[in-house]
């Protein structure tokens, strides 16, 4: 069947099997290998992408279901030159080691901060609790998300002052 899915702002049309999972559509059809595949049972979150702005596990969505929807992957975070504040914070705060869970964690963090720009540590932990990291013990992921929130807060203040000035 033919489907059209908007991925990172670009409409992508492909002929796919109805059973094709979204994670495999992104990886194998579009070559967007930043989204990872790990557990098959929606437990680990390595495959998290944003689906109409919400973090969703792409191993549990058929590509066909994404017809007409907007998907954002790690490749769509930040712009070509600049990192998203979340990406910058993960790098600054050592929020990753092997890097396998990182794209999913960052997309969840981005969605959290879009909805709640000043989350508490507990709210951060709750937001990423559907995702597993085997390397970091979560400490520095929480720190990274907090740092991204602070950086965005500071950027808003500067922008506000410039506007006022």
């Amino acid at each position, binding site marked *: 069947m033919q489907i059209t899915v908007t991925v990172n702002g670009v409409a992508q049309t492909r002929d796919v099997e109805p059973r094709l999972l979204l994670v495999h559509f992104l990886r194998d059809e579009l070559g967007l290998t930043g989204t990872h595949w790990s557990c098959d049972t929606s437990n680990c979150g390595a495959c998290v992408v944003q689906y109409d702005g919400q973090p969703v596990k792409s191993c549990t969505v058929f590509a066909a279901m994404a017809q007409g929807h907007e998907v954002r992957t790690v490749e769509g975070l930040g712009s070509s030159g600049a990192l998203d504040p979340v990406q910058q914070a993960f790098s600054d705060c050592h929020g990753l080691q092997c890097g*396998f869970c990182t794209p999913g964690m960052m997309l969840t963090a981005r969605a959290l901060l879009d909805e709640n720009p000043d989350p508490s540590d507990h709210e951060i932990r709750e937001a990423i609790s559907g995702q597993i990291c085997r390397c970091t013990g979560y400490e520095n992921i929480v720190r990274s998300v907090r740092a991204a929130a602070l950086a965005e807060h500071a950027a808003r203040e500067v922008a506000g002052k410039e506007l006022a000035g």
Partner: protein
Amino acid sequence: MTTTHSAATTTPMGYGSMRRKEDARFVRGRGRYLDDIALPGMLHGAVLRSPYAHARILSVDTSAAEAHPKVKAVITGELLAGLGLSWMPTLSHDVQAVLATDKVRFQGQEVAFVIATDRYAARDALDLIEVDYEPLPPVVDAKRALDPDAPVIRDDLEGRTDNHIFDWEAGDRAATDEVFAGADVVSSCEMLYPRVHPAPMETCGAIAYKDVVTGKITIWTTTQAPHAHRTIYALVAGLPEHEIQVIAPDIGGGFGNKVGIYSGYVCAVVGTILTGAPVKWIEDRTENLMSTSFARDYHMRGEIAATKDGKLLGVRVKVLADHGAFNGTAQMSKMPAGLFHVFSGSYDMPAAHCSVTGVYTNKCPGGVAYACSFRITEAVYLIERLVDVLAFDQGWDPAELRMKNLLRPEQFPYRSPLGWEYDSGDYPETMRVALEMAGYEELRREQAERRAAYERGERVELMGIGLSFFTEAVGAGPRKTMDILGLGMADGADLQVHPTGKAVLRLSCQSQGQGHETTYAQIVAEELGISPDDIRVVQGDTDQTPFGLGTYGSRSTPVSGGATALVARKVRERARIVAAAMLEVSPDDLEWEKGRFHVTGDPSAAKSIAEIAMAAHSDLELPEGVEGHLDASYVYNPPNLTYPNGAYICVVDVDAGTGQVTVRRFVAVDDCGVRINPMIVEGQIHGGLADGIGMALMEAMPFDEDGNHLGASFMDYLLPTALECPSWELGETVTPSPHHPIGAKGVGESATVGSPAAIVNAVLDAIRARHADMPLTPAQVWRTMQGRPLRMDLAIT
């Protein structure tokens, strides 16, 4: 919040907690993991697995699968037997079926391999293979494996009439027995370190491609030990080693899971030979948990002896080791129980003895994995539980008992009763820092208040405080005592310095997230005074790197890190000779300051490394015997292991009504010697502490009476999330390793090794129980409170 108490006696190396060089690609989703690689014309493999734990194979019919339009080939055990490849040697001098021919011996064992044009079609075709099995009674309970009427699992081995693999012992049995006979008090405890799985986020896989023109085979694979894999492929398959290139791309976590060679890899190699196309195989999560490298599974009966005033006198243990259906532990060949015999721990223990018996059962092979430092995890758990059991029996404070018996700084280097030479440490200071950070006395007061409130019926939570003090022996290892399959455990390092003064370091080890590209650049930077940004670290490709045994057992910094420092010093000495020629002085008249040589007494007469590097490649006339260039190679054979150690304190709250445990605080004070990049070290400790929560409280893979694996997905095999983990509180002490070139000790596994005992001790302290086996799930805690703890290895209540 992470707080760091520093009792450091040395400062971190230059560049300290610099950001990781590898993160630039990872945060952009530009890491390149195995499954990200797509080669032109690549085919996909899938493995058909046994539904039975023990069954005879009567027939395998692959005709319908072969007729599937997208299937290119089907490999069976019979086909492999024709090539002499149906069995492969394990890392412990046993053999293992690549694809079963006679019997299946564990649930999930590999039976056939389908190669198709896409991954979905390969899976579809598995359903078309007809296998006729005759089920046989399985051996599930390791304690019954040696019963006279137990079914014989390994009837493939000639003359085999039972399930016994080996007996092994260490220490002085007679001297230990004598100590026990004369001791005032003895406590004993039977405990299981249950089977767990490393479960890295990326599963295991390989892509094999044989170039039909050149005959060269390239294997991209999730390996922690690329060079060892190349040699083993050569030995197993009779392939010429110079025509094999093993490439480890980015690895999504290893933890020991990616040390071995699995059937799927061998089938991918056979697949490319059969089809002429690249063949990819990557396991799914259930396959990962069922069939690749579990860890632990040690049934231990330990005893500890002491004087009536709490001086430890001796420890002894009998171990029944469940190795599964094939003896496939990734192990040093002279040490079938690995480094388990470091179990006398961190104490001034006059006598110790262990005997270990390995048995076959109808379970997946493995045993050494999951950040275990070659079975030191089991050893530390044993001694740290025994100390608590002794304290429980005698009504002693577990912190005081430990403090009274810890090795004192003046005892180092310390020769243990089991033959180890502990290199360095200040254990009482490390313990003192941990107790102070935790506020131990105040915690005990709070606990007593809470207990009283519980007893008055005002609260349902009980509070527990648990300690552990671990000593690891890591960095395998000295060639004379340590080898794997005859390969000595020394590591090479090559360092090139380009004419413009930039450098490329080539290593045999392979990062799985440890940050090698940063840490090892920092070592070279420190030794040569080049910025780490000007040093590229190459690893994971056997065509581009020198030989070495790989990354596991916390060995990279102790061994490859040593090689890195020493190859840089070799380059520096070459640079000295070139600089001497440039300055027209004798090499002995030059002094090194970071980044340059200057003439003694005249700091202005100096040449930087970049200037020297250019001159070394130029027409400058060099002294006789100097070849030109600065490049050097070094093979580092460590003189001893390194001995990281640490004191851990855990505080838990237990809901007495449900058995639910909440880890409130965790204090970890580690001494891993000189810290090259403290940020990376702390990150590794954080990760290991989370492992400890998983193993102590959550991770269970029991087997039912038919040998069905009941922990085969993340729905059943529970791993800790951010909600189960507290915010870790880290501290440090630093005693540099006296024999390591930069004073570093391994650290990657310290927290995984040291933390489970502290958590278990805390929970048992809360509920005032003597012992219960991990994982302390709510059901297990609740049952323990009723005096009926469960066996956690069997799904039998």
